[in-house]
């Protein structure tokens, strides 16, 4: 894009320069103007059918659709001219004559583009009088997670184009003609494509609904937090939608470098564990009776005692779902020992790509931070871990469920310190258990399979006394004299960036919401 010559034009009195070939609707964004639209979506081929983005261009006799018109040198575009406004008001009126005004029971209300634009520039009252019956068709189960409410459909065809051109599995179509038209589904097919859930996000109105989210929350009750999907090593950018401190929905967050505008259904529904009720809520220390709850000071002191009292070899068993910061600090904490670190990664056969987007797939590596773990010297060598455990003076576990180890391989471990979100049976032998936050409850970073370091943010509070792993590990470093306490995730990342060449020069500020590549891509290539 940057190779193309720039074209200067004026949109609503604001002069902008954009590369040749840019569509007006995109150029307008540069001028701070969102031209109302329905069928246009930057991730889909242009359809030009809703006719909502009609704008006036000086010197052209007719209004033009901004979604299909390319910029031209010296163009003067009027988005809010009387003529353009009248045309868009009319489109809204036409869309509403058959649209039920059932916003109070519609999941889309509050994030509905029809609602928004009608409030913004529509008519206050209908002229579709006297009370003609509206077109009515019953709700249809499209299969998969998707319900179709034809009455609300404005036939923008985003869903059809997504299936045709992005998923490249033409399950949906436009059936019938005129005002009888509706979105049809291929006979004998169900909308069970592994990426089909995106049609719900793409639908500008409440016509395609998620069964999973159906009537679960009103849009305005939701808090949105930028996060990274934990489903696989792709590292799709997502938003966690929370209500009353529970994650109720995951939706894609645009990142052209990673997932464009889409996420797979596997990742979309991979959130229930974030709300688990059986969490460790207090630090636990072992006494004669077993594990007993205590306060942080006591627990940290006990853990520090163990670490200071041991010598020789130390083993860290980490989950590839914990933050890069925690992985780094765990290693630093054990720096005094002869250290080895292991992680176990769930793998499945084959990838499930989204054909219309290059380098996007549900990856076979089903964890978000395998690359981060490898970069920091952890080995995916579960067989080597067992003998190492036998010789270890200290074993530090970072949220690994330990379910892949036989009972006797842990029974010999004397000094087990367990940092985790939940307490699996195998961890009951630990001398100290320290409760940590999960991905929705802390700030941190993951490194995806392409070596892109991406931040995720805290979406809800951690339960009970649980704390982010970086905080716990920082406290232990201070107690054991391995370093100073860490005050924030950002500071933990600074320590990481200072120590690791792959991360040098990076900071939370640099990463922002889109992430950045690590410095040594060849290392990632090897680690894949």
């Amino acid at each position, binding site marked *: 894009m940057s190779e193309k010559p720039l074209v200067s034009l004026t949109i609503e009195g604001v002069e902008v320069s954009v590369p040749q070939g840019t569509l007006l609707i995109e150029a307008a964004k540069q001028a701070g103007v969102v031209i109302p639209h329905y069928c246009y979506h930057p991730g889909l081929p242009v359809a*030009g059918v809703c006719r909502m983005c009609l704008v006036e261009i000086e010197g052209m006799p007719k209004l033009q659709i901004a979604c299909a018109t390319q910029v031209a040198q010296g163009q003067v575009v009027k988005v809010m001219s009387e003529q353009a406004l009248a045309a868009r008001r009319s489109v809204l009126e036409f869309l509403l004559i058959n649209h039920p005004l059932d916003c109070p029971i519609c999941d889309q209300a509050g994030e509905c583009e029809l609602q928004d634009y009608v409030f913004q520039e529509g008519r206050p009252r209908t002229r579709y009088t006297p009370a003609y019956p509206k077109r009515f068709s019953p709700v249809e189960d499209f299969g998969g997670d998707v319900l179709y409410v034809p009455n609300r459909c404005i036939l923008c065809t985003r869903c059809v184009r997504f299936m045709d051109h992005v998923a490249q599995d033409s399950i949906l179509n436009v059936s019938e*003609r005129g005002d009888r038209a509706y979105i049809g589904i291929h006979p004998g097919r169900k909308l069970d494509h592994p990426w089909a859930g995106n049609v719900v996000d793409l639908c500008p109105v409440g016509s395609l609904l998620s069964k999973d989210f159906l009537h679960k929350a009103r849009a305005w009750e939701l808090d949105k937090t930028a996060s990274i999907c934990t489903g696989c090593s792709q590292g799709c950018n997502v938003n966690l939608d929370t209500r009353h401190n529970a994650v109720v929905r995951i939706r894609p967050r645009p990142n052209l470098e990673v997932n464009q505008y889409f996420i797979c259904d596997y990742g979309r529904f991979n959130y229930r564990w974030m709300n688990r009720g059986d969490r460790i809520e207090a630090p636990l220390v072992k006494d004669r009776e077993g594990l007993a709850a205590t306060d942080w000071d006591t627990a940290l002191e006990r853990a520090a005692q163990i670490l200071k009292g041991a010598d020789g070899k130390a083993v860290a068993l980490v989950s590839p779902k914990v933050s890069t910061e925690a992985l780094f600090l765990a290693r630093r904490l054990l720096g005094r020992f002869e250290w080895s670190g292991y992680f176990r990664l769930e793998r499945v056969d084959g990838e499930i790509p989204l054909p219309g987007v290059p380098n996007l797939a549900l990856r076979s590596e089903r964890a978000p931070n395998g690359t981060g773990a490898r970069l920091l010297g952890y080995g995916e060598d579960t067989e080597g871990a067992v003998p190492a455990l036998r010789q270890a003076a200290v074993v530090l576990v970072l949220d690994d469920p330990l379910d892949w180890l036989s009972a006797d391989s842990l029974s010999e471990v004397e000094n087990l310190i367990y940092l985790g979100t939940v307490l699996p049976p195998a961890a009951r032998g630990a001398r100290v258990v320290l409760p940590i936050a999960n991905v929705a409850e802390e700030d941190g970073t993951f490194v995806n399979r392409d070596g892109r370091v991406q931040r995720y943010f805290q979406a809800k509070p951690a339960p009970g006394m649980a704390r982010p792993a970086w905080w716990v590990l920082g406290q232990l470093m201070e107690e054991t004299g391995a370093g100073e306490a860490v005050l924030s995730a950002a500071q933990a990342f600074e320590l990481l960036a200072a120590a690791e060449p792959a991360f040098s020069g990076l900071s939370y500020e640099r990463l922002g919401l889109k992430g950045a590549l690590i410095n040594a891509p060849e290392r990632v290539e090897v680690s894949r």
Partner: protein
Amino acid sequence: MGYPHPPHPKETVVLSQYFGDPEARTYEGWKKRGGYTALEQALSMAPGEIIEIVKESGLRGRGGAGFPTGLKWSFMPKEKTKPHYLCCNADESEPGTFKDREIMRWTPHALIEGCAIAQYAIQAEVTYIYIRGEFTEPLAIMQQALEEAYRHGILGKDAMGKKGLRLDMYIHRGAGAYICGEETALMNSIEGRRGNPRIKPPFPAAYGVFGMPTTINNVETLAAVPHIINRGAAWYKSLSLSSPKSTGTKLFSVCGHVRKPGNYEVTMGFPLGELIYDLCGGMREGRKLKACIPGGSSVPILNREETESCLLDYEGCIEKGTMLGSGGVIVFDDSADMVYQIMRLARFYAHESCAQCTQCREGTAWTVRILQRILAGEGEMKDLDLLLELAEQMTGKTICVLSDSCAAPVVSGIKKFRDEFEAYIKGARRPVTALA
């Protein structure tokens, strides 16, 4: 000629010369009548020369838009980097129009010859003749003629005995959608897609059927091409009674309240009044002319005065605020209920809207509901303003002109026959409740 009537002395019979002559349908019969001599001559010329001749003749598109044919051909890339296609639009679905049907029924070889010349001129490998699905008889005749043409070496490998020249022609049958007569919808339909019009640009000459450079012409346009090659551009250009920008002959399909409905071929610029009163035998006994739609249902309606003074060429129709369109002349006498007729037209468009553009999908259906309510005696005066406002928003705002076509008769109807609308609204006219 005014088939099924004998030729009227005021007609200029060129395309319709052999209408009603079954022998002209066959290859032998067509050869005997001078068939395929124009193709032979054309193949001895360079493609560019043919385009120049057609440009010079002033031939304009007979499908409705009246775009200069030679100019359209010249838009095709000169440097061939991709396959070129010719599409012949035989999806004649415009209400009131039935000229292409007769050309295909009686002179199928004239169309094949015209297609072959055009195909050669634009350097296309393949011609698709897209025939309206309901045209079963013309389809059978065209298929037979095409088979004959292949058998006699007119088409196919070494076409017309010219070494290395390959001309292929396929007939594609439509499935009954009016919108497939719109050129880009027709191309989608040929490709096996839903017949939705495409956004322009890109235009067909750059990105047409299968994404390749394509020219699309109407049946009547292509059928005129052999005559121009045979008799020269100057002859064709001389066929003009009024504006020099409109040349040649044009078939007018006259239907409605005239004594002798049928196809009449007259020189461009012929008076519409004369066509109705003279050639078509005028109104029925005791009836008076009330209104006329001169160019197929999509063009604005003319009242009596306008009809009687309208000259039938592109410019003459525009002068009266209407269009020559496809030449489907629909005549109404004073027994016609204009409100009902306009509702009936609008209902056709509402039924045929492809459902892409919002204004068309919803606007056509809404227009019909308002008109039906007026007919049922439940209308209000403000409905007329609403109709006009909807029509305004349905004009020039959509991908194709179907929605404009629905708006045109509504706007002209209300403007010219407002008293009839008001009569229903005021209760002065008996409501029409059974809406067939």
